[in-house]
C-alpha cells in the first residue's frame, strides 16, 4: 500500500490516530507495516490536511448552514426593501455621501448584487425571492457547485448595506465561503463523476439521493476536498473564538466579571424598584455572574486544546458549551446569529465516524432506536480509532 493510500484510511485525518487495523500494525512498530510511513510525525501535516474523509460532515454542515441562511433571510420578509434596498433606511443619496467620505461608513462598502436593482423595487423583490430559492436549492444539495458559489455571493451581498450590517452576518459569510470551496473541490480528484457532475455538483449531494440513486451513493469515494474544507472551517473558527476571548480581556467589564450584568438589566426595562429589590442579594448575584462569565472565557480560550479531542467528555464539553452559548446569545444578549454559528463551528470538529453516529441517530429518529444502534457503532469507533481514544 502506498503512503497516500494508507493515509487516506485514517478516516478523520486526526494525527497519530490510526483508523484501521493497518494503522494498529504501524503503531505497534511492526516492520514493513504498510501505514508506518504515513503515521510518522513528519507526515502529520499531510494527514491533517489531505486525508480523504467521508463527505457526510460537509453535507451536514451544508444543511445546517443552509437552514441558518434561509432563516436569516426569511426573517426579513416583508421588511427586505427597507433594510437592504437603495430605497430603504439607507438610500442611494446617503450611500453616495459615504462614498465621498469613507470614514462615514461604519463598515466597508463593497460590492453587492442588490445594487443591480438600483431604484427598482420590483427588481429588488425578484432578487430577494430568487436568493431565497437559491439558498433552498443549496441546502437541499441541488447543483451544489453552482448554487454554492451563488450562495456565497448572496450571503455577502446581503450584508453590504452599512445601515443594517451586523457583525454576525460576517460569520455567515465565512460559512458560505468554505462551503463553496468544499463543494467546488469535492469529487474533482477522487470521484468518478460525469462532466455534468463536475460542473454542477454530484447527484449524491442531493438530500434525497439515498432514495433516488441508492447504488450511486453506496459507491461514493471519500474526499480530500471535504477534509481540506473542514480543516479550514475548524482553524478559522478557532481564530474567531480565541480572538474574541482575547478582545474581551481588554475590556474592564470582562476582567471584573460583570459583562453578563448588562444584558440581564436592559436599561429601558430596569427601574429603581427592581434595583432596590436586588440590593440585598447583590454580592450573591455578582459572585455567580462573574463565575459564569469566567467559565465562558475559559471555554473560549481553551477551545484549541479540546476541540480536536475525541471522546464523550471532550465532545460534551465542545457541543454542550456551544449549546449553552447559543441559549445565552439568544435569550441573554438578544443576538440572533452568534449561537447557531458557534454550534455549526463546533460541529465541524466531529469526525466522520461521529457524523455517522449522528446521522444514524437522526435517521432512526426515536430515542429507543438510537440506543439500540449506538452500541455497535461505539464498538466500531473503538476498533477504528483505537481504544484509548474512546472512553466507555
Amino acid at each position, binding site marked *: 500500500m502506498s503512503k497516500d493510500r494508507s493515509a487516506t484510511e485514517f478516516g478523520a485525518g486526526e494525527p497519530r490516530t490510526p483508523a484501521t487495523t493497518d494503522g494498529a500494525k504501524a503503531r505497534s512498530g511492526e516492520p514493513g507495516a504498510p501505514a508506518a510511513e504515513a503515521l510518522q510525525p513528519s507526515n502529520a501535516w499531510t494527514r491533517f490536511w489531505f486525508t480523504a474523509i467521508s463527505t457526510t460532515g460537509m453535507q451536514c454542515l451544508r444543511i445546517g448552514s443552509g437552514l441558518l441562511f434561509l432563516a436569516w433571510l426569511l426573517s*426579513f420578509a416583508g421588511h427586505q426593501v427597507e433594510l437592504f434596498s437603495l430605497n430603504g433606511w439607507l438610500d442611494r443619496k446617503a450611500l453616495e455621501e459615504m462614498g465621498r467620505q469613507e470614514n462615514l461608513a461604519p463598515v466597508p462598502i463593497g460590492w453587492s448584487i442588490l445594487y443591480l436593482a438600483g431604484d427598482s423595487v420590483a427588481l429588488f423583490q425578484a432578487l430577494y425571492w430568487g436568493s431565497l430559492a437559491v439558498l433552498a436549492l443549496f441546502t437541499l444539495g441541488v447543483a451544489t457547485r453552482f448554487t454554492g458559489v451563488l450562495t456565497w455571493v448572496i450571503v*455577502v451581498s446581503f450584508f453590504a448595506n452599512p445601515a443594517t450590517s451586523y457583525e454576525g452576518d460576517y460569520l455567515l459569510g465565512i460559512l458560505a465561503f468554505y462551503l463553496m470551496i468544499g463543494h467546488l473541490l469535492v469529487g474533482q480528484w477522487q470521484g468518478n463523476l460525469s462532466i455534468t457532475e463536475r460542473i454542477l455538483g454530484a447527484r449524491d449531494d442531493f438530500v434525497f439521493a439515498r432514495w433516488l440513486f441508492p447504488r450511486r*451513493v453506496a459507491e461514493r469515494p471519500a474526499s480530500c476536498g471535504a477534509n481540506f474544507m473542514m480543516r479550514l472551517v475548524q482553524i478559522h473558527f478557532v481564530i474567531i473564538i480565541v*480572538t*474574541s476571548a482575547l478582545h474581551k480581556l481588554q475590556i474592564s467589564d470582562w476582567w471584573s466579571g460583570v459583562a453578563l*450584568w448588562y444584558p440581564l438589566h436592559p436599561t*429601558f426595562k430596569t427601574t429603581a424598584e427592581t434595583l432596590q429589590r436586588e440590593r440585598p442579594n447583590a454580592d450573591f448575584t455578582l459572585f455567580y455572574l462573574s463565575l459564569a462569565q469566567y467559565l465562558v472565557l475559559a471555554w473560549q480560550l481553551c477551545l484549541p486544546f479540546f476541540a480536536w479531542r475525541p471522546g464523550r467528555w471532550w465532545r460534551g464539553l465542545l457541543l454542550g458549551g456551544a449549546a449553552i452559548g447559543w441559549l445565552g446569545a439568544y435569550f441573554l444578549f438578544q443576538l440572533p446569529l452568534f449561537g447557531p454559528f458557534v454550534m455549526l463551528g463546533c460541529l465541524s470538529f466531529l469526525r466522520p465516524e461521529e457524523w455517522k453516529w449522528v446521522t444514524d441517530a437522526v*435517521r432512526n429518529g426515536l430515542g429507543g432506536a438510537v440506543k439500540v*444502534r449506538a452500541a455497535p457503532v461505539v464498538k*466500531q469507533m473503538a476498533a477504528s480509532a483505537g481504544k484509548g481514544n474512546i472512553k466507555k
Partner: protein
Amino acid sequence: MSVPMNDTTQRAPSRNPPRPLPLWLKVAGTVVATGHLLGIGLYALAADSGPWPYNNGPSHSPGPAFATSIVLNCTYPYYLKPLRMTHNYHFASNRSSDLAVYFEVQLKGELGEVRTLKFPDEKANFWVRHRHDLLAQYLFPDQPLPPRGNQRLPALGKEVPKVEVWVRAEPGSMRLKQVEELDDLLRNPDVQQPTERAKLFAQSYARYLCRAHNAVSAEVIRHSRLTVMPMDLFVQRPELFNEMKSYFGEYRRE
C-alpha cells in the same frame, strides 16, 4: 470491521480506494491554506487594542507594525476585502455601551396630522427588531466640539461660519441647532455635537420614512438613557433613570 448496512459513505473507501493526491497538489493546498489562514490571523492581530490609559486620557493603541503593514498594504485590499472577510473578530457586542438608545420619528402629513413611529418596532419580529436596534446605535455617541482656537471672523460681506451643536431646550431634551462661530456657547467645554455619520443616518431615515408613509416632513428624535451598571446596586445615581430626547431637526420632503 462490522459496518451497519446503511453505512454507505464509510464503506466506500475500502471498495473504491481514493486516488492518491500528487505532491504538487499537496504543496498547492498547503500554500493556499497557510496563506489564507495567515491572512485571517494577521488581520485579527492588526486590530486596534484598548482603550488603554495614557497621559492624555484613554486611547486605543494600534496593532503590531508588521501585522498592520502587511494587512494594510497587501492582504486587506487585495484579498480580504474582495472576499468580504473584513471583520477582525473584535466584536462590538462584547463591549457594553454607556447609553441605551431607541428612536422615534414624527411624521407630518399634508393636512398637518402628526404620526409617531418608534424603533425598534415592538410589533416586528425578533430579527427585524435587532436590525432596528442597529439603526438606533448609529445615532450616537455624540462628540465634544473640537477646540475652537482663535475667533474666526467672516470675510468682508460674508456670513459668520456656523456650527451644528446640541442646545438644551427644556429639561430632558436638546435640539440640534446651528450656532455662529462667535457665539459664547461654543466656549463651553461641555457642548457636544452629533457625529457626521449620525447626522447622515438621521437624514436618510427621515427621507425613507417620508417616502414610505407619504409624509411631508419627518423629524428623528433620539431617546437615550444611562446604562444601568453593577455599581448602581451600591451607589445611587440621581440622573440614572432620566431620559434625554435629542431632536435632529425637521426634514421636509423635496
